[in-house]
Each structure stands twice: as structure tokens, then as C-alpha cells.
């Protein structure tokens, strides 16, 4: 059963018709007494639906925030004695089809970023295929480079969704003010060991078309990271975890990270908490 979409032009047309007919009736009302028999009163039109509330509320917006990674990483990178932290947050506000997405990542002393690197993204997302949202928007990235803070803005186009075999996919292309193009791909998957003990596999890679020294990225493959995090869902929304990540950068990126005093090949243990609300 297919009911038609509302047709604005039809409504406008109908209004005109009703107005003209109405004016005609009013102007004629006094002139011509009705000849119709009053025996059968006309069926009163049903009341207008427009004044009434909707019977169901299927367009409500929701706010979802997922702090997938919020973790402490004990010393073990290039700089002995320095512990550091990392986070990865994303979320959305909106309905089933249109959403405003926000994302933030922060990292320090990884194989990819020697000093701290924080980014924030604000995106418009649209449900475009059965399992995917396409996202478009902007990203701001701040990093420390040779003791100074450097910041850049980037445009973002990406896709996020669930691929066959239940892997969460997040893929994005970035272009900064200088026209430098880079990309990021991440895949995560949950393996249920028990109903509450979940092993999350996490794979991430970064790529760049050009060398951008200030942001310690070389051209080509920047890094590959693979992590496993074992969490216990005390509640669905609150799950402490432990795990490790194997992270390695390549080529020019590795050289730049090394120059900055970082270690381009790391195995790090992590402990943190996964939250959502």
C-alpha cells in the first residue's frame, strides 16, 4: 500500500479552488435561496487532523555520545617514565535520517603522533544506504610540533556504518587549508566472550597524499594500528577495560616521529573505560 507524498502544488490549487468557490457561495447566499430539501442533513466533515497531536512520535531526536576509548597508557613508548592518555569519542544528535555528528580524538606518544595531538570534528550526517551514514563537515586539529602548538582546519567527507560480518566502519577523507589530502580508516568489532565480557578488536590506519611536516605526516601510508580491548559491561553504558595496541608508522612519517623524539613502533598496554549515554 503506497500512500502518496504530500503534494504542495495540489494543496495550493485546492486552496484557490476552495477560496473561489467559497466567495462564490457567500456572494450568492442571499440572492438564491436553496431549493434543496432539508430532509437529509449533510454528513459533517470529520474534524481536521491538523489540530490534533500525532498518534505516534516517530520523529523524536536523540542524543548519543559514545566514549569508545578513554584510557591510561603506562610508560613504555619512546620516553621512559612518561605515562599518557588517549581518547576517542563520537556521537550524534538527531533522528533516524539526519544527524549532527561530533567526534574527538586525542593522543600522545603514539607511533603516529609523537607529541600530543587533539582533533575535533563537527559533521552533518545523512542515512544514505541501509547501514551507512555519509558525513560531511569540518575538523580542527591541534598538535605540538618542536615545542610549539600548531593548528589547522580541515574539510571532512566520510562514511560510517556497519559492514558485513558486523564490523563498525569509519572512513574519512580530509583536506586542509593548504590543499593537503589525507584519509583515515578504522574498523572495530565486538566479540562476545560472555554476555558482559566483550573483546573489542580495533584497526586503524592513516594515509596522506602529501608530506605535511608540521603535523608529522609523510606522503603515503602513515601508520597501522591494531588493538585488542577486553571490557566488562557492568552496565551496557559503563565498561572498564584493559588491552594493548600495536602501532607502527612508516616511511616519512616514521622519520618525522623519530625526529620529534617519538618511537615509530610501539606496543602499549592500556587500561580505561568505555562509556556511552
Amino acid at each position, binding site marked *: 500500500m503506497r500512500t502518496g507524498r504530500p503534494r504542495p502544488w495540489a494543496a495550493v490549487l485546492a486552496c484557490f479552488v476552495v477560496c473561489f468557490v467559497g466567495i462564490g457561495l457567500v456572494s450568492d447566499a442571499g440572492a438564491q435561496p436553496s431549493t434543496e430539501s432539508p430532509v437529509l442533513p449533510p454528513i459533517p466533515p470529520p474534524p481536521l487532523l491538523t489540530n490534533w497531536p500525532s498518534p505516534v512520535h516517530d520523529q523524536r531526536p536523540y542524543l548519543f555520545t559514545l566514549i569508545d576509548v578513554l584510557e591510561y597508557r603506562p610508560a613504555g613508548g619512546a620516553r621512559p617514565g612518561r605515562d599518557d592518555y588517549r581518547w576517542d569519542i563520537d556521537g550524534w544528535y538527531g533522528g*533516524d535520517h539526519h544527524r549532527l555528528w561530533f567526534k574527538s580524538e586525542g593522543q600522545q606518544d603514539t607511533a603516529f603522533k609523537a607529541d600530543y595531538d587533539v582533533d575535533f570534528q563537527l559533521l552533518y550526517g545523512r542515512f544514505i544506504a*541501509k547501514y551507512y551514514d555519509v558525513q560531511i563537515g569540518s575538523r580542527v586539529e591541534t598538535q605540538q610540533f618542536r615545542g610549539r602548538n600548531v593548528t589547522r582546519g580541515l574539510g571532512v567527507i566520510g562514511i560510517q556504518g556497519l559492514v558485513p560480518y558486523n564490523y563498525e566502519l569509519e572512513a574519512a577523507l580530509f583536506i586542509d587549508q593548504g590543499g593537503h589530502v589525507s584519509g583515515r580508516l578504522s574498523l572495530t568489532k565486538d566479540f562476545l566472550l560472555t554476555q*558482559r565480557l566483550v573483546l573489542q578488536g580495533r584497526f586503524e590506519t592513516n594515509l596522506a597524499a602529501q608530506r605535511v611536516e608540521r603535523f608529522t605526516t609523510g606522503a603515503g601510508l602513515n601508520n597501522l594500528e591494531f588493538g585488542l580491548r577486553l571490557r566488562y559491561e557492568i552496565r551496557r553504558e559503563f565498561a572498564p577495560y584493559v588491552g594493548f595496541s600495536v602501532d607502527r608508522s612508516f616511511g616519512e612519517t616514521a622519520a618525522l616521529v623519530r625526529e620529534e623524539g617519538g618511537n615509530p613502533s610501539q606496543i602499549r598496554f592500556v587500561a580505561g573505560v568505555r562509556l556511552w549515554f
Partner: protein
Amino acid sequence: MPFNKNVPDGADSISRRLLLKRIGALGVLATIQSLLPACAGRAIHPIPSVGTQPSALSGELIDLVINERSFTVDGQIGTAVTINGTVPGPLLRLREGQQVAIRVTNHLREPTSIHWHGILLPFEMDGVPGVSFAGIEPGTTFSYRFPVKQSGTYWYHSHSGGQELQGMYGPLIIEPQEPEPIRNDRDYVVLLSDWSVEEPDRILANLKKVSGYYNFQKRTAVDFVADARRMGFWPALEDYLMWDWMRMDPTDFADVTGSALVYLMNGLSPTGNWTGLFHPGEAVRLRLINAAAATFFDVRVPGLTMTVVQADGQHVQPVTVEELRMGPAETYDVILRPEEDRAYTVFAEAMDRSGYARGTLAPRPGMSGDLPPRRPRPLRTMDDMGMGMEAMGRMGMGGHEHKQSGVIQGRQQGPGHLPLPGHAGHDHRPDHGTATTESTASGVGMEWVRHGPDDHGLGNQMIAEYARSRWMEPGTGLDQTERRVLVYADLKRLTPMDEWREPERTIELHLTGHMVRYLWSFDGKKYSEAPDPIPLRKDERLRLVFVNDTMMEHPIHLHGMWMELENGAGKFLPRKHTVIVKPAERLSVAVTVDAPGRWALHCHLLLHMEAGMFRVVEVAGGERHGPS
């Protein structure tokens, strides 16, 4: 107020005597025990609720007051929306042929409504905000007035937001003018429902964000090891990977489970143990009402058979079963004959096996029956996908790749239909898209019907490549049992229809949804995307064909008019107000469109309805009846 005119003595006098005995303790407490203020709830322990029934109201003028109160179940305090102060609300006992005026006063801070489920009445009195009236604003009173034109067991509930999940429902019994062809000594309402301390909005939000939020029976590594032992490593792996590949969960039987719900019988939790009394040898009638917002119940009384005599308030030819499945909003009247002087458990297990409601039938107060062993949660199979191995075998495409990717492969094969060999009678059927088709073909038969090319867009996760009738099946989770389980094919009306009128027109509606994103719709469009009423013609004979493209059962409810379930019973098709449509099922009902006005047609899983699995049908033409 005698329950049954056919019974001269027995039931009422005994229950009255009991009530008199307990006039102080039970008589008063019984009416309020299911709803106690938070402070009192803590102080008073659950009392055995012997023979308690919701307090009854009858007559031509009934006043109902809607309030919000705290409600304590098993020590957990939540907020309930109550009718005259209780959960469930009072039993309304009407008489066929009478007029009734029911004044509903809203003392909530939000609008409310009451829908009289299964009752034939003028559409303005049907109680669906936005369809039949504007709703009942806070602080106001709405007077429902309608003639009572039928008899049987029904119920009533809020049709506003999540109020039904918050306890706003009650039983409605209409005594027939003619004596009933049912003999019973005892007559009990057994109203099943689900209750959560979580707010309905919160539950829906959780599901929108993480659709598997309430499922704590998913398949895990532990299950995999067990399955690998049982089936062999590779077959088990193949099976697990197939479900993962499809992004579906074979353990998905309920969106909201026992992890968040308490299942109630007459407002009492399993520890509250509602009790109905009997003398051995008596015929006990249970009026089973599934008033749950989110739960299918499998009901049985171990040690006894149940003879089903009414379905959805309508007499049916007696059929004796050991277990029956009830979708939300369905009702069944069953007769039991306990012969032994012992307690029997009335056991209503949630379809996903995550919990149960229970009560006791006992010869004396204070007894409690044994709980039957719990069953493992079932698993979805290829049957529920609309792509059975059997079908693939018959189609000559049982290859390995198809096993893994059959659904998508089938979908990509595009238009065209494929009549399956071995099913005579309908060797040529048109493709079934979603359009309204004019058809004079007979009802849905046993054949497998291939899905049309329309995959219903973004809002629909998958399609049932082949849908077929499943009214002869008891349903997933009940199909492995030795027990005699009620199937829809068993339901035959008691007296034949005067004449069978073949439907002139067919409307096919696909039940669609997306489990990952928690979207629910008809034909891939939620209500806000298809708000225009489906036009029906007064006095036409209509066939509604429901095709379930999802992997969940949906109880579909048509307001205002009977659906005659086309279950092969010829002139004995049963009349239903709510029909369960199983996954990958193609089920049809015949409707005589005799009630002018606008009526709701929706899935009676409250959250599915609220997510958009809802339509309005509009019956134009003919004279509108005024309110009464």
C-alpha cells in the same frame, strides 16, 4: 455481581465467603495491594492474593480517573499511570445491548486517552489521539459514549505515548444477551502485562542508540564452543559467520527483555503469586488477556489441558491444547478442569525465555504450584528469514555460497516471480510489490510467494525473499515441543458465517524494520513519512495481506472492524482484532468494511508503534453514526 449466570452456586458464593472472611485484610487490601504508595509498599510484604480480581465497575455510567502514582514491585519503585488508582485498572463489566457512558478524567501532567480494544463503536469514541479525537488534556474529562454491540473478553488501555507500559490498562468483559455456550464454575481474569521501573522514553532511547541493549541472551564464545562440539567446528563457524555477515542477531526475540521488565499477572509479580481458587472437579474459566506492551507470552498450566473457547472475545469451536502463544493485545478464554486436590501453576513465559509471569490455581489459599523447568531461549532459523534450506533445495539453488548469501543474492536477481513447483492451485501469481492490487484470488494459500523488487528502502533491513503462510505453525520456540500447542489453524468460529463473501479488493502491507537502527514501519515508511490515511470504501469487502519482512513476530491490530483470519477454515474463519504475523509470513485477513471514519492499524508492540509502525485507514461514504 455474578460472574456467570449459568452457574447457580459454587464459584461466587465461595469467593464471596472468602472475601467476607477477609473483609478487613483482603477485601480492602486486595483492591489496593497491586498499587501501594512507595512508603507503604516497603512496609507491607507481598500478601498472597487469593482469588483477587480487579475491582469491577458496571452500569451505564462509569467514571475513570487517571493518575500518576509510585508503584512498587519486588521492592523496586517506579512510577505508574493508574486508572482509579490501581494497576491494572478496574474490571469493566458491561452487558451486550446496553449503552455506556465512560467519563475519563485526566489528572496527569500530560495528555492521555483510553482505547477500548476490540470494541466496535463510533470512531470518535475509539480513543486514539490524532486519529479519532484530540486526546484528553490534563485536568479535563472526556466522555466516551457508545452502544455495546458485542460480548466477550476484551481490555482497554492508553493509546498515548508510553502510558500503556506504565500500567494504564484494564480488563473489559461484556456479558452476552444470550446465555453463553460455555459451562464454568469459576471465572477468573488473568491479565498478563510487563512492567519496568525504566521510563518508556528511556527504553526507546536506549534501543535507538544500541538496539541490542536489553538482550542478555546473545550468542557468545561460550555458545560457540558448545555449538562447535555439537555441530562440528566448521558448520558452527559457518552458521555464526552467516548471521554476522547478514548483520542480524538470531537471538532477537524481544526488544525489551526480563533484564528490564517484570512480568505481571493481574498486577502481581511472580513472587506476588496471584492465586485463583477452585474445588477439584470444577470447570475453571481463565480469561487470558495479554496487556503487555512488549512481550509475547507462552501460557500453560502444567498438569492440565486448556480448552480454548474464545479468541479475541469471539466464540470458537473448543480446541484442547497444552500451551498457547499470546501476542500483545490478544485474548483467549480457556476452560481448565483441575481434578486433583493440589496447586497448579499458571505459567506465562516470555517468548524469549528471559522471564515469566506466574500465578497459582489452588484448592486453598496460601498454596503455590511448582515452577516448571525453564526452557532455553530459541534461535531464529532460515525459516524466519524467508529463505529456508528447504526452499532453496526446491529451487535447486542449495549451493554453498547461497547458504551464506542467499538473501542478498535473491534480492539482486531483480523482478520476476518464480512459482515453486509442488504447490498446486496457484501456479501463476503476480509479483507482490507494495502497491495496492485489485484481486479476486482466494485467500493466501500455502504457497511460497516471492518478494517483489521493492526492498522498501532505507528503513527496511532485509526482505523475506519467499513469504508463506505459517498459521499451521506454533511459532519459533514452541515448534520443538511434544506438547500440543495452539496454532492459528485451530481457531474456527463456533457458528458458521451466513455466507462467505469473497473480498473484492486486496491491500498488501509489508511489515518492515531495521533492527540495527531500531526503525519500524509499514512498506519501509514510518507513520510520519506516510501520514495520509489509506482510503477504504464503506461496505466493501477487503482482503488485507500482511507480509512480514522482518525477523520478529508482530501483533497487528486493526481498530473498529473485525479481521477474519484466513486460516483455511472456510465458513468458520475466526474473527480477530489482533493477529500475530510471524517472520517471513504472508498472512491474510478478510474485512467487511462497515465502520465509517478513521481507524488505526498498527503493530501492538508499543515501541514499534511509537517508532512508526502505524497507519490510519479511512472509511469514506455511508452515514456516519453519531456518538451513540
